[in-house]
């Protein structure tokens, strides 16, 4: 018995992704970027702890406007990954799996990660 033919529609430009879908793909994307950032974070840690001039160097780099922006970008990706991950953990134990709850929690992920980034921006720029 062959399976029933199902409609296949994979024109990625025309698929309308619901908000929960965006949060899901952003979770994956942010995870990949954070993986790439991991060795760099350890590199910075190593320099900042090695000697006094290294600490001053890291401090000087982080004072550059471009570095601040990059840092904030990473903070946003991290916060997004963090909150979307908590949402997935909740979904794993069947919390908030109804359509309205899942929509609401994906809005919550975006709001919380945005708020965390604003707090970080206040810390970095003010």
């Amino acid at each position, binding site marked *: 018995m062959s399976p029933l033919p199902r409609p296949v529609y994979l024109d990625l430009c025309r698929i309308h992704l619901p908000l929960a879908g965006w949060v899901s793909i952003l979770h*994956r994307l942010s*995870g*990949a970027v*954070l*993986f790439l950032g*991991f*060795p760099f974070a*350890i590199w910075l*840690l*190593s320099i*900042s*702890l090695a*000697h*006094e001039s290294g*600490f*001053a160097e890291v401090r000087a780099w982080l004072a550059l406007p471009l570095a601040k922006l990059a840092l904030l970008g990473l903070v946003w990706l991290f916060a997004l990954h*963090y909150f979307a*991950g*908590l949402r997935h*953990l909740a979904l*794993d134990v069947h919390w908030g799996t109804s359509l309205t709850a899942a929509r609401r929690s994906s809005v919550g992920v975006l709001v919380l990660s945005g708020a965390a980034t604003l707090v970080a921006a206040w810390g970095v720029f003010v």
Partner: protein
Amino acid sequence: MKPVLGARGGTGSWLLQRGTALGMALAVPLFIGALVLHAPFDFTSWRAFVSLVPVRLALLLTGMALALHAWVGMRDIFMDYVHPVMLRLLLKGLVILVLLASVLWLATIMWGVA
């Protein structure tokens, strides 16, 4: 890696990813809190902070959890999007290399900071 983690249809990897996620989800706010409490830092106070045994232990454990977590995540991405077997193997090898080197590097830093 496969015989260790993948032999039960992925349940092991699934659990590993969730377990490390939970651990890090608890560790990160605590670590940020400790940073904010001790801030601002100069070189001496930064080194003194990181050389505290709980901080060194937390950093090393979190780094190890992160490596395991990232391994499962990156492997999932490759399984979904990279279908040529050799290319996928190469990418998986690179990820293992980067993660292993990172954790070993972190361990030597934590060892040396005391």
